[in-house]
C-alpha cells in the first residue's frame, strides 16, 4: 500500500497538469464543434471521462450485467475486480462500443462509443484467442499506429511496451508474456487518452506480471486514464486508485484499495468449543463457520468482539487462534458472502 501512496503523491502535480491541459484542449474542441451546447464540457467534467448508467445485458438466460453504474475519472486507474464470469469483459466491450447494452446508457468522452466517433482517443488491450501470427511485432504496431491521428513514434511504443528486442520477430514465435506485451503495445501505440486493459496479466508468470505492472505505471505517470479488469486483488491493490468489485453482473463494493481491503480482509478464528455450530453461527459478526475436525473455523470481519463473545458464552473454549485471512481468500469471501445473500433474497 505504501508504494501506491507514494506513487500517487509523487505523480499528483504531473497528473493534474496533464488533466488540466487536456480539459483546456477539450474545451477548445467543444467550443468549435458544438457552439450551441456550451454546457457540454461542464457535463463532461462532472460525469467523468467514461460513464455507464444502469447497464443491463443478458446472453440468453445468463445475466451478464445487472444495473451497473460506473464513472471513470480523468487521470485515475480504476480497477474492475471480479471473478471469472463476473461481467468485466462485457462491461469493457460496451464502453468500447463493440457490444450494445440491452438497457442503460454508455458515454465515453461525451459520446456514445457505439457511434465510433471517439475511438481515436481510446486504446484497448483485449483477450484474444489468436492474433495473425505471420506478421512481425513492428508490423502489427505500424498498422495500428496508422489508425490514429497522432500516434506515438514506433521507437517509443517499443520502449514502453518492452518490445525493442523482439520487434522483428513474427507474433507466432513469441512467448506468452511477449504476446501480452504486443497486445499492450497495440493498445498504447495510438497515444490514446483512455486505455482499457482487460485482464492484462492473465496467464503470466510472476516476473512477466511485475513487468506488465511497471509498464502500466508508466502510462499513469504520463497522465493516461486506465480502466483495468482483473481477478487478482493484489493486482488491483498494486495499481489502482479506486476499485470496483463486480460479481455476477453487479457492483458489490467500491472504494480505494485500502477501503476494499479492510472490507475484504477479514480474520479467521479457530477454536475448540462446547457450543454447537448453530450457537456459534448466531454470534454477531460471524460471517461463516465451518467444522474442521474437532475445531470450528470462523470467518469474521473484526476478531475482538467475536472472541469476547465466544469466551463469555463458553468458559471451556480452547485452542484459540486468530489469523489474517489471505488477500485472495478474503476476496473470495467477499464475493461468496454476496452470493449467499443474493440466494437468500
Amino acid at each position, binding site marked *: 500500500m505504501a508504494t501506491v501512496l507514494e506513487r500517487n503523491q509523487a505523480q499528483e502535480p504531473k497528473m493534474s497538469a496533464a488533466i488540466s491541459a487536456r480539459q483546456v484542449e477539450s474545451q477548445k474542441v467543444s467550443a468549435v464543434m458544438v457552439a450551441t451546447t456550451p454546457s457540454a464540457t461542464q457535463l463532461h467534467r462532472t460525469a467523468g471521462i467514461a460513464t455507464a448508467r444502469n447497464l443491463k445485458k443478458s*446472453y440468453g438466460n445468463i445475466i451478464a450485467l445487472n444495473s451497473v453504474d460506473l464513472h471513470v475519472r480523468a487521470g485515475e486507474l480504476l480497477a474492475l475486480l471480479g471473478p471469472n464470469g463476473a461481467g468485466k469483459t462485457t462491461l469493457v466491450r460496451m464502453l468500447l462500443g463493440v457490444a450494445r447494452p440491452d438497457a442503460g446508457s454508455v*458515454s465515453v468522452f461525451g459520446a456514445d462509443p457505439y457511434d465510433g466517433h471517439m475511438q481515436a482517443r481510446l486504446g484497448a488491450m483485449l483477450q484474444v484467442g489468436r492474433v495473425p501470427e505471420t*506478421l512481425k511485432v513492428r508490423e502489427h504496431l505500424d498498422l495500428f499506429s496508422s489508425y490514429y491521428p497522432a500516434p506515438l513514434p514506433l521507437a517509443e511504443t517499443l520502449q514502453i511496451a518492452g518490445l525493442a528486442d523482439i520487434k522483428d520477430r513474427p507474433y507466432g514465435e513469441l512467448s506468452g508474456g511477449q504476446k501480452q506485451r504486443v497486445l499492450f503495445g497495440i493498445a498504447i501505440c495510438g497515444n490514446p487518452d483512455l486505455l482499457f486493459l482487460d485482464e492484462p496479466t492473465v496467464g503470466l508468470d510472476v516476473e512477466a506480471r511485475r513487468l506488465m505492472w511497471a509498464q502500466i505505471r508508466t502510462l499513469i505517470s504520463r497522465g493516461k486514464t486506465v480502466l483495468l479488469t482483473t481477478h487478482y486483488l493484489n493486482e488491483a491493490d498494486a495499481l489502482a486508485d479506486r476499485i470496483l468489485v463486480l460479481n455476477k453482473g453487479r457492483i458489490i463494493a467500491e472504494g480505494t484499495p485500502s477501503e476494499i481491503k479492510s472490507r475484504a480482509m477479514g480474520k479467521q478464528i479457530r477454536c475448540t468449543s462446547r457450543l454447537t455450530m448453530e450457537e456459534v453461527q448466531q454470534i454477531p459478526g460471524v460471517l461463516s463457520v465451518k467444522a474442521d475436525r474437532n475445531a470450528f473455523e470462523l470467518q469474521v470481519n473484526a476478531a475482538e468482539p467475536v472472541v469476547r463473545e465466544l469466551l463469555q458464552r463458553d468458559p471451556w473454549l480452547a485452542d484459540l487462534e486468530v489469523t489474517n485471512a489471505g488477500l485472495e481468500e478474503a476476496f473470495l469471501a467477499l464475493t461468496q458472502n454476496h452470493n449467499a445473500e443474493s440466494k437468500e433474497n
Partner: protein
Amino acid sequence: MAATTFPTALAVPRRSLQRSIAIYAKEAKYELLKNLRIPVYAISSVSFPLMFYVLFGVVLGGGNPAERAERATYTLATMGCFGVMAVSLFGFGVSLAIERGQGWLQVKRASPMPVSAYFAAKLFSAVVFSTVIMLLLLTVGTLFGGVHMPIATAARLIGILVAGSIPFCAMGLAIGYFAKPNSAPAVVNLIYLPMSFCSGLWIPLFLLPHGLQVLAKFLPPFHLSQLALNAVGLGENPTPAWEHVEALLAFTLICLGVAAWGYRRDEGKTYG
C-alpha cells in the same frame, strides 16, 4: 439504447482523405503480407489450380495439336475460375471466420480502424492472388499447352476472372460470419468442391447428366466460367453475357444480405 446525455462534444475531427487512403493502403499491404507468409494458403492456393491445369489441360488427352490447344484454352478458363474461387473463399471466408471467432476482429473494431478498410484489404489480397494464378496458368498454357490468343483476349479473360472474385468474396464474407474458426476450412471445402464439379469446371457441362446441367444454372461458378469461356470464344451455350452477369450480381447481393444478417447476429454474442 437510451440516448447519450449530450452530443459528441469531444469527437475527434474527421480524418482527411489522405490519411484514409494511407490506412487502406497499409491494411491491404499487411493483409497481403500476412497471407503470403502462410505457406498453406500461399502455396496451395496457387499450386492446386496450376497442378489441375497441367493435368487436365496440358498433359491428359490426345487429339491433334488444334484439339489439344482448344482443350488447354478451355481448361484455362475453367481452372482459372476454380483458382479464383479458392483464394476468395479461403482468403476471405476462412480468415474472417478465424479472426472473428478468436477475438482479433474485435481488437480491430475497438480501434479507430474503418471497418471497410478491413474488408477492402481482404478483397485486395484475393484480387492479387487471383491475378497471379491467372498469369501463371496463362504462361503454362502458352508455353506447354499450345494456347495462343491475342493479348487483348488474354487481358479480357484475366479481367473477367479477377472481377469474378467479388461474388466469391461476398460468399466468403457470408460463410465467415456463420462458420466457427475450426470448422470454416471444412465448410468451405464442402461447398466449393461439389459446386465446382456441378458447374462444369472439372468436366465440361455437356458431358454431365441433364439433371446437373439444369442445376448448374443456379451455381455461380457456372456463370463465371461461361463468361470466361465466352471471352475466349468457347462458350457452349447461347445465353447472352448479361444474364450471367445478372446471375452473379444477384448471388453477390444474396451473400451480402446473409453476411449483414450474420454481422448483426454476431453483435449480440459474446466471444472470449
